[in-house]
């Protein structure tokens, strides 16, 4: 099996030759692999495509995440974004400050200005080298928090919950437009990012009230077009069963969640992707720590298939590259069926 076949086999419910490895190695770290600072690749999507392809080639994992985050995605609804050097890009201002602003939110054209070209380029490279390429879009809940600002958005949970619902509804077409642009680009799967829906940030009740319906609607809308991987980082244990009911093909689970417990809560019909700690193990740990974490993850989730080895969240820029190499090396060692 080649890398792409291995990845797609798992999503199709088959047991592959070995557990596929698809770390969340995105625009935070990939530029370092080609010796470029993040801000350069933020302004030049082709630089990012080159970096993502180079990282995949160097480390040999099975799929690259076509992270649009350093391209048009954060400012696609008009949010100004700043980045300097290797810093994480910051959305520095909000575009929805009142109910009236909802009317002004236009559905973006993701293809405008050649912004999807880097994704197309990466997909071509993936086809040539037989690895999977994953698209990545924000959920309506995360988009809503981005355009309103996290504080304003979450203050409204109690002050004006209808505003929260209306805002999520207003940005849903943006999520779908970006998702379809990725599908047209030829990606193999789509990661729907909903980091702010984590039980480390909002209560399970608020997740069910605001985030879950939008996830379910988007995934339902894309059903039959592409498999969707739902990403919720940090602690998602209290909502794993709900996440499985969204219709997602896979759940991206972070390190605070026990994989065996997540499997029990999610059932056997959904793939689990995770859950190596991108900070404690990959950024700050040793190669031996990586081996131990990979072995533990395989022990907890490999049996009977339905598992993709991954980090639980984005790998920080300061992570040593030998730890990423170790992730693949030990993923292969412990991942054979």
């Amino acid at each position, binding site marked *: 099996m080649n890398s792409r076949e291995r990845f797609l086999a798992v999503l199709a419910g088959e047991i592959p030759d070995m557990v596929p490895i698809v770390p969340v190695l995105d625009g935070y770290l990939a530029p370092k692999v080609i010796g470029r600072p993040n801000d350069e690749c933020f302004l030049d999507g082709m630089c990012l495509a080159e970096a993502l392809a180079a990282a995949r080639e160097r480390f040999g994992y099975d799929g690259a995440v076509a992270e649009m985050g350093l391209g048009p995605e954060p400012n696609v609804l008009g949010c100004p974004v*700043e980045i*300097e050097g290797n*810093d*994480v890009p*910051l*959305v*520095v201002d909000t575009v929805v400050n009142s109910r009236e602003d909802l009317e002004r939110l236009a559905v973006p054209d993701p293809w405008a200005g050649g912004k999807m070209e880097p994704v197309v380029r990466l997909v071509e490279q993936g086809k040539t080298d037989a690895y999977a390429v994953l698209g990545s879009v924000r959920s309506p809940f995360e988009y809503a928090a981005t355009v309103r600002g*996290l*504080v304003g958005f*979450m*203050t409204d*949970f*109690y*002050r004006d919950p209808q505003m929260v619902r209306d805002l999520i509804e207003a940005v849903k077409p943006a999520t779908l437009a970006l998702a379809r642009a990725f599908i047209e680009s030829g990606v193999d799967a789509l990661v729907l990012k909903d980091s702010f829906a984590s*039980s480390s*940030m*909002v*209560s399970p009740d*608020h997740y069910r009230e605001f985030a879950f319906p939008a996830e379910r609607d988007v995934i339902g809308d894309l059903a039959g077009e592409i498999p969707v991987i739902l990403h919720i980082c940090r602690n998602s244990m209290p909502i794993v069963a709900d996440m499985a009911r969204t219709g997602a093909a896979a759940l991206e689970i972070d390190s605070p969640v026990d994989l065996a417990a997540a499997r029990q809560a999610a059932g056997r019909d959904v793939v689990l992707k995770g859950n190596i700690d991108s900070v404690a193990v990959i950024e700050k740990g040793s190669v031996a720590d990586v081996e131990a974490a990979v072995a533990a993850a395989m022990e907890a989730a490999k049996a009977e298939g339905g598992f993709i080895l991954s980090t639980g969240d984005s790998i920080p820029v300061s992570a040593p590259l030998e730890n990423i190499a170790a992730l693949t090396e030990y993923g292969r060692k412990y991942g054979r069926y």
Partner: protein
Amino acid sequence: MDGKKLLVQELLEKFENAIIEGDADASAEHAGAIVAQGEASADDIFARLSNAMEAVGNRYETGEYFIPEMLRSADAVERAMAVLEPYLFEQKAERSGVVVMGTVRGDIHNIGKNIIVSALRAAGYQVHDLGVNVSAAKFINKIKETDADLLLLSAFTTSTKPALLEILKALEDEGLRDKVKVVSGGASHSQEFASEVGVDGFATDVKSTLAICRKLMGNE
């Protein structure tokens, strides 16, 4: 305890609970009652405020509260402070200082900063709030413009150390380091971290912020 003192304690208790429960209407109402009754000292009020925010933080730590519940309590503080500010301002015993405050570059957290800004204004300080993700240059310009006594740098996590170091270096380069006292603050800050960075003091909550500002202004 005489009747008046008992009433003050009851009012302060209700004020504290309203903040913990995130009931902004009640916190403003109890703040109004405290002002009308006129017996509570500024220290009493700030102590209750600190207790309340600590309780909110504990509920977050134990998984009872999440970010929206913390914001609801921050909202209750803001509403109460709007009522209390004139009353607290009249009581201020210390020399008013000029404060420049902001959340450092690379950090967009503003809940804690906003609470501190309200508390400092209420305590009589003239506060210039520069917002979040503030560059070293912006801090320097505002310090020059206002002739500030204190620079308060809000930084949610200790991963902001490079940004703090950059600001301190800029102060040195501009010859301002001896003219302004620098305090870094955030829930994860410690004496060890403050020493590593080279600030004059650190704070983790409202109470410790007011205490360190008072000390650095020579009002201890």
